[in-house]
């Protein structure tokens, strides 16, 4: 089955992006496909390569990049939400791209399930 994932909150502040990661990993392990993850609102803050968590903590951004590379996931960051929060191409981590909200509606249409993580 194909899953689309929507993430509406930033890393570390809320558990949303942790839950989304663990859900996505489990879905892939069960043989499902996750063609696209859409980062909206504060969710765009998951995409900055400048982040540097403490040594004993998880690296949320790197986890996304690695998952995307291994499984060919399209990590899409909402352009309007990103611009107003200072997420631009120059700070984007590997695997992320910036695009429009149409990419969210599109995955909603194309995927079998859309799963939302927010606050």
């Amino acid at each position, binding site marked *: 089955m194909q899953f689309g994932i*929507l993430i*509406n909150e930033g890393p570390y502040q809320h558990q949303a992006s942790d839950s989304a990661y663990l859900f996505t990993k489990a879905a892939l392990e069960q043989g499902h496909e996750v063609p696209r993850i859409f980062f*909206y*609102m504060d969710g765009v803050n998951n995409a900055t390569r400048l982040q540097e968590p403490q040594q004993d903590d998880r690296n949320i951004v790197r986890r996304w990049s690695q998952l995307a590379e291994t499984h060919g996931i399209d990590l899409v960051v*909402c*352009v*309007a*939400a990103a611009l107003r929060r200072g997420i631009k191409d120059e700070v984007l981590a590997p695997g992320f791209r910036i*695009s*429009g*909200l*149409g990419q*969210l*509606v*599109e995955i*909603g*249409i*194309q995927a079998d399930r*859309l799963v*939302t993580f*927010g606050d």
Partner: protein
Amino acid sequence: MSDEFEDDFSGEIKRFMFVNRKAPHGTIYALESLEVVLISAAFDQDVSLAFLDDGVFQLRKGQNANVLEMKNFAPTYRALEGYDIEKLYVERESLEARGMTADDLVVPVEVVDRARMAELMADQDVVMSF
């Protein structure tokens, strides 16, 4: 308010419901829900909007967020009809708990009771909840 247009998108038609449960202005959820709704219009899907709990406050008349230097997006709900988005459902119990009626809202809506709202939700292909 849109980032792009995808008028040439074609495919199956799904029933999309946007569920709005948060008050406006305290968080950006209400505004960003409306942004997705407007974009979705370009995809020719079967779109409906549900307002319940504090989400009914999004449609309240007389809002003026400009006094907070914020965007005053409530009038945009009146533009939805022009995008052929005409299914706006508002939960009766939510209105009543807030001392409101349909007359307090900026747009004509269909007021439904909780049981009917639950049926409408269960009847969707995709639910985006904000």
